[in-house]
């Protein structure tokens, strides 16, 4: 092991590889489950030559309590070639799309990593993608293909955030081959004259990011991926000191008989108040809606559907101190079912590179909803993260 580390360090130095590693120790207390001590982190490496750039991201985690949360995962391994006004990317990659803070309807290329943290929107798995982007000043046109539909893991029964009382088999079933490509076209444009806005239009054809569950046998279920045409639109508008944000999508299910076409939309408002006794405060108010065209078909099949007829209200307090202390607190309130998810995060740097985090999450669910399976519970976290 020592030799491997020495060789790695030598390679990093000799080949001018840029690296960044986060390593965390997290103690998580659950009211309904066994507490756990989680060691996790990620290492990002970037190797640049005149011809290309190679990026990798390896994620690792080890829970002393839950076997499913042990392992090493290659989240990203991709090549980038930059030209004057064009960029080509190829490999296993995580891409982000979205404007809102709580949940992003339009962030659909990568599957969420539910084993790592169901409520962390940065926790995603890489997808095999080839994409080309043409830039015209601040506008761009991106064409991409996802080559492979990977299976997705979920927490097991009797572990935090299990999705069902039946056991889950992560052998993904698909409408056609898993290698059947998903293609997308994304146009990003700014407007500057009357309205100052940043917009994206995405056309998407292939496997939906959402999947439904099918029984494997009497005791277990697995995921099923179906094909769709999707139209997505994102926008943010700056008006004085307010940001208005919008995300929407229309999904046309191509062949699948069990799934209905559906519409999702969300909008949000962000306001900032600066230099209040040295602090900055940001307020976020967001609303999410999910609407099936045919209500008789399958519903409540994916954790993303938590965000239906929900209001998200949050506040971020930036103390502007030398420790970069921040306090974030927010509530997701389901209007229809009167369910609530409450989350508070506190973060402060103890020393350069060493950050202390505290988190409190409380779920208050009702019967027969997506949240029901997550159970009413509270989790409290204390974590130390070292970045080098």
């Amino acid at each position, binding site marked *: 092991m020592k030799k491997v580390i020495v060789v790695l360090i030598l390679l990093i130095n000799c080949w001018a590889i840029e690296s960044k590693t986060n390593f965390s120790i997290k103690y998580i207390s659950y009211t309904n489950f066994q507490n756990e001590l989680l060691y996790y982190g990620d290492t990002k490496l970037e190797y640049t030559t005149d011809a290309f750039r190679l990026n990798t991201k390896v994620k690792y985690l080890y829970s002393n309590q839950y076997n499913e949360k042990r392992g090493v995962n290659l989240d990203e391994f991709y090549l980038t070639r930059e030209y004057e006004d064009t960029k080509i990317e190829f490999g296993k990659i*995580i891409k*982000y799309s979205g404007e809102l803070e709580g949940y992003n309807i339009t962030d659909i290329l990568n599957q969420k990593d539910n084993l790592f943290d169901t409520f962390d929107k940065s926790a995603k798995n890489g997808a095999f993608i080839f994409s080309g982007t043409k830039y015209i*000043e*601040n506008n761009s046109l991106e064409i991409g293909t996802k080559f492979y539909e990977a299976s997705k893991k979920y927490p097991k029964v009797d572990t935090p955030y299990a999705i069902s009382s039946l056991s889950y088999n992560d052998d993904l079933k698909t409408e056609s081959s898993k290698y059947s490509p998903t293609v997308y076209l994304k146009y990003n444009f700014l407007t500057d004259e009357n309205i100052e806005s940043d917009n994206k239009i995405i056309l998407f054809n292939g496997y939906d990011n959402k999947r439904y569950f099918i029984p494997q046998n009497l005791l277990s279920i697995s995921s099923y991926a179906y094909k769709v045409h999707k139209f997505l639109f994102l926008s943010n508008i700056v008006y004085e000191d*307010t*940001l208005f944000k919008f995300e929407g999508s229309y999904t046309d299910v191509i062949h699948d008989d069990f799934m209905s076409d559906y519409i999702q939309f969300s909008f949000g408002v962000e306001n*900032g108040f600066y230099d209040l006794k040295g602090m900055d405060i940001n307020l976020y108010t967001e609303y999410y809606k999910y609407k099936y065209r045919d209500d008789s078909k399958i519903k409540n099949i994916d954790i993303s559907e938590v965000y239906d007829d929900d209001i998200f209200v949050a506040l971020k307090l930036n103390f*502007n101190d*030398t420790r970069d202390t921040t306090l974030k607190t927010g509530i997701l309130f389901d209007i229809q079912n009167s369910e609530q998810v409450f989350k508070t995060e506190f973060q402060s*740097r103890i020393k350069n590179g060493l950050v202390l985090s505290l988190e409190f999450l409380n779920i208050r669910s009702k019967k027969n909803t997506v949240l029901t399976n997550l159970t009413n519970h509270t989790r409290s976290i204390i974590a130390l993260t070292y970045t080098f």
Partner: protein
Amino acid sequence: MMKKILLFIAMSLSLYAMNSLEIAKKSYEIMSGYQSSISKTTMILKNSNAEESIRKLEIQKLENSDGDKSLISFLYPMDIKNTKLLSYEVIGDDDKQWLYLPALKRVKRISSRNKSGSFMASEFSYEDISSQNYKNYTYPSEALKISKDGKEYFKIIRVPKDKNSGYSKQIIFVDTVTYLARFGEYFDKQNRLLKKVSFLEYQKINEVYRIKKVNMFNIQNGKSSMLIWDDDSINTNLKEQDFTKRALR
């Protein structure tokens, strides 16, 4: 006694006044002409208990008569490394700003009305670190020539045109020989003295004066921040396309 003091002060001031705008313009122009620049900087933050914290940044700038463009990359502490801020200065109006958050790979448009907000938890606000273009201010009075510690300065008062500025006015003391700003006093919206700035060191690169060390002391909270240019190069052939949203990723 009081009369003597007033007489002494009056004598230490020049008997003639000069046009503040002209001085501000000249002061700006001797620092202009760099076309584009790449600077590595260190920022030392000190709280009121004199505890220190360090930030490191790379600042790329493109000079433009309509307003400069800048790309700031955060290098240290490591937990904020690769966070980037792209700013387009708009003379006399809100700038345009985008923030790149590497954890999510997200480019986030941010409201540029946070001019008075702290930049990286320092005593520098966003408007302090943006270009000090003389066109961003009005000059309500003539400049006065004053003597302080045996040196002569032009004392100019400037008022930010942008109503979202955190300052009601700024008093800048400009060297009468070099036309370099040497120190200043910034007043908050209630017209109370908020900060004292000291432009401690300049260097000349290819006939262009460049700031090398500046200190900002907040009178009201006792905190201070020092910004030091460790490495600075100009005429670096950066182009417009290096300051588009593409550059953030």
